[in-house]
């Protein structure tokens, strides 16, 4: 039977989860994770316990009427050794079922609940307009057809968002094929998970992992690093790309290109200015964020600078197709780029990158380890979500990546008459959950606002303290943009800002304003 195969697969996974990752696998977690009903999940766990229960600790849920006080329906969790004794307290027809399996019984029983709650939280953060197994409670044993749920007032915006995002997906695909360089393929080899639509985090990470992989010449690695950075940046801007498509006219693109770098650097600067203590995942998911972080330590700066060096030829190659993300990419580089004296060392590093490469590897490994757990946690989810036809997988990606802001979907500013020159404007508002959200809004076109805000949301997925910094920076972007009307000039402007610390830029702009 096909069932058996599937069951075996799940059982193996349970074993891996419990023994390797020391995770508590409760029936509810299992049910949500593999999209089976709670009852089936309990059966699976029972089967698992029968097969290899000796290697693990089992917690049973015991429920029924108590013998001592017949008007009490009691539900308790017991470990396997205490099961027989606990059963005596219950009347004869009590129900005994496997609640969870784990490597060891935690001292604090709440630990049993954590994995499940994290999962529930993730499901909860998905857009409210779409049902998931948390929101419609579909895996329980009791159905209630009278329960109705409205989208919570977010319906109008959410209906538009998936379209934009699917466009983004399409673009992303075409981009990656256009990019299809041997290097990149190699890069993706070491981590098959990168092919899964899991998250920005996973992608960027795995690619950087690939670059630091062994058996590749240091020079090659350096080359590859550029490539690795490029797609990362591309993914970051996929939504921008889509907006570019939406915008249509090439003229529009040019018009925007001139202004955009500033705004983006602003964006990155803000995320830099607001180190987010909580979020490994949340923060990393913006490539800008990644590079900001990276730029914190010097070793990493080198690698990024190297990419900025290689930027020249790459730019020429893709300039027409991907002017946008090219910009974005360059932008990211510029952000991270250090003071002029250090830039000299770039050349040196390119010629003999081995030591630096080594250091970088270490850092990356550390990072990788840090995010590993996170990746794993999330990896199964895309498969579960793939069932939902309503959502494009790319939405899933972004939702996963931006856990904190999944439901921020309010409408953006009204569309102003379309003009070739559009500006990015940072707008701060309070969303329906009471968080402060700063979004980048394209003044001038409506369709893009969604997509842009998406990338931005990732940048400030936590209510950010330093929003005070932002208005001046927002001011800065148009000002600088006007000095740099052409693409070339824009680049120069970029370099200017790039040479400074982002924060210094802020101060400068502040004075300009004054």
């Amino acid at each position: 039977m096909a069932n058996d195969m599937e069951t075996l697969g799940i059982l193996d996974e349970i074993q891996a989860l419990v023994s390797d990752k020391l995770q508590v696998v409760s029936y509810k977690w299992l049910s949500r994770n593999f999209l089976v009903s709670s009852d089936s999940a309990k059966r699976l766990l029972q089967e698992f316990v029968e097969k290899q229960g000796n290697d693990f600790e089992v917690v049973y849920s015991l429920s029924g009427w108590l013998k001592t006080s017949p008007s009490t329906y009691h539900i308790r969790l017991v470990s396997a050794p205490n099961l027989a004794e606990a059963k005596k307290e219950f009347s004869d027809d009590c129900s005994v079922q496997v609640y969870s399996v784990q490597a060891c019984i935690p001292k604090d029983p709440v630990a049993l609940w954590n994995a499940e709650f994290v999962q529930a939280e993730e499901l909860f953060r998905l857009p409210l307009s779409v049902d998931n197994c948390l929101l419609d409670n579909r895996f329980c044993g009791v159905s209630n057809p009278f329960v109705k749920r409205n989208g919570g007032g977010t319906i109008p915006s959410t209906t538009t968002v998936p379209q934009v995002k699917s466009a983004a997906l399409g673009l992303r695909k075409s981009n990656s094929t256009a990019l299809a360089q041997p290097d990149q393929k190699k890069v993706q080899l070491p981590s098959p998970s990168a092919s899964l639509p899991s998250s920005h985090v996973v992608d960027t990470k795995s690619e950087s992992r690939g670059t630091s992989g062994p058996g590749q010449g240091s020079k090659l690695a350096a080359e590859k690093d550029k490539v690795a950075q490029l797609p990362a940046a591309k993914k970051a801007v996929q939504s921008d790309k889509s907006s570019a498509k939406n915008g249509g006219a090439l003229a529009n693109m040019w018009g925007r290109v001139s202004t955009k770098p500033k705004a983006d650097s602003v964006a990155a600067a803000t995320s830099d200015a607001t180190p987010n203590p909580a979020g490994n995942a949340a923060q990393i998911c913006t490539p800008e964020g990644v590079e900001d972080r990276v730029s914190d330590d010097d070793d990493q700066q080198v690698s990024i600078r190297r990419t900025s060096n290689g930027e020249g030829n790459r730019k020429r190659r893709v300039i027409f197709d991907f002017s946008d993300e090219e910009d974005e990419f360059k932008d990211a580089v510029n952000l991270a780029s250090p003071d002029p004296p250090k830039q000299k060392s770039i050349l040196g590093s390119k010629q003999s990158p081995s030591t630096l490469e080594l250091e970088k590897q270490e850092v990356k490994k550390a990072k990788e380890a840090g995010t590993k757990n996170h990746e794993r946690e999330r990896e199964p989810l895309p498969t579960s979500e793939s069932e939902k036809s309503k959502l494009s997988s790319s939405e899933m990606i972004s939702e996963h990546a931006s856990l904190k802001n999944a439901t921020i979907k309010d409408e953006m500013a009204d569309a102003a008459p379309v003009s070739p020159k559009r500006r990015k404007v940072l707008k701060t508002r309070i969303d329906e959950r009471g968080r402060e959200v700063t979004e980048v809004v394209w003044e001038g076109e409506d369709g893009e606002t969604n997509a842009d805000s998406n990338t931005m949301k990732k940048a400030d997925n936590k209510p950010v303290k330093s929003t005070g910094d932002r208005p001046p920076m927002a001011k800065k972007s148009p000002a600088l943009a006007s000095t740099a009307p052409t693409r070339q000039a824009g680049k120069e402007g970029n370099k200017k800002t790039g040479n400074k610390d982002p924060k210094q830029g802020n101060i400068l702009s502040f004075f300009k304003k004054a």
Partner: protein
Amino acid sequence: MVVAMEVDSESNLLQRKQSLYHSLDESFEMGKEVYRGQQYSQIYYARLHLMRTLLYSLLPNWKPQLPVCTVLGLEEGKECIIVGTLYKHMKLKPSVLDEYSKERSAAPLVQRHNFTHPDDNLVLEDESGRVKLSGSVLLPSTYVTGMIAALHGKETSAGDFLVEDVLEAGLPQQIERPIVLGEDKYVVFISGLSVGRSTSNPLQFQLFVDHITGHLGDVKEQNIAAQIVQVVIAGNSVEVPHGLLNGQNLGSKDQSRLFEPIKELDILLTQIAASIPLDIMPGSSDPANFALPQQPLHRCLFPGSSAYNTFRSCTNPHCFELDNIRFLGTSGQNIDDLGKYSEANSSIEFMERTLRWRHLAPTAPNTLGCYPFTDKDPFYVETCPHVYFVGNQDKFETRLIKGSEGQMVRLICIPRFADTGVAVVLNIRNLECHTLSFATQIHS
């Protein structure tokens, strides 16, 4: 195959029972009330007016031969009946002035949980005046300020009113309970979840959620779960860290700490609302107004669960009808306050008293926060409920009381879930009660 499994599990899915819900919260909702500096006298006046009319109507059946007097019309030695508001003079009643007066610093300033004292004495007052009450019939420890009664007695030479008998309003009229209710349907009461408290055990609440939503247990247990038609959360669902609120602006980190418990609650409530109709009442620790009647918790606090048609944010006190069974309940403030200013053996006795006095919160506005209504007293119990519940008590208690006109009321004290792990289940077919208890201490 996953699909196949889902299909076969759906085929034997139980259907949750339904019942007809009718909210009766209007009298507790603050509509167009505007505070114009009014004092609390009007609420006492409204109460006295309401209750006195009621008591007068009962007098012919009680002691028809006796004349009815006002306090001012009392004559020494003449037996009569007076109706008025009781005031209990309490030696230990905390006064804000005590903290500032140096002379009275002999009185302990420590917080006590009960302020009764053997020296307490009662005073009855109406519009015309007040008179000190004496006699052993009327025990000061049982009664509280704000309660209205008819007293039979006579004025003594000392100027006191010697009480010989007391008439309380008694249980109000009850709507007919549907006699034939074919099937078992359960209402689950839970209170004092205290999500966010450092000692609270979220696993316990999760087990509760899983049980009532039909995740936990075998088919038999899910059968029971399928008969649950309503969940009522009677207050104190969250415990926000009040230490953070010191009048200063909060940093973003503190803001999230403040909000985290509410978010956790929302996620858990979402799981309930996705399956069962859910009423949530505010309590003393919840982010709601302090003064009774507490207004519904704002829906914005629960972005997830408020999207369901099953989610209702209600007032405290809360009144509703389910299949023509009338429920009335509070989150416990009224009973807790009675516990501070009077004495009884158990919470259930306080509950019974409030029903017999026909007043949910007689100590409001004296010692219990209350909005200064001008034209009504919303806590007057006009119609007798079939089920009267009070949240956030120390332990589960229940009692079935009967009125003189055949009224039957199920009284339920809902314990604090975070402390006891106990929720209460009521069968609305026969008003039988049982508890649902959870234990998560895995002995390893």
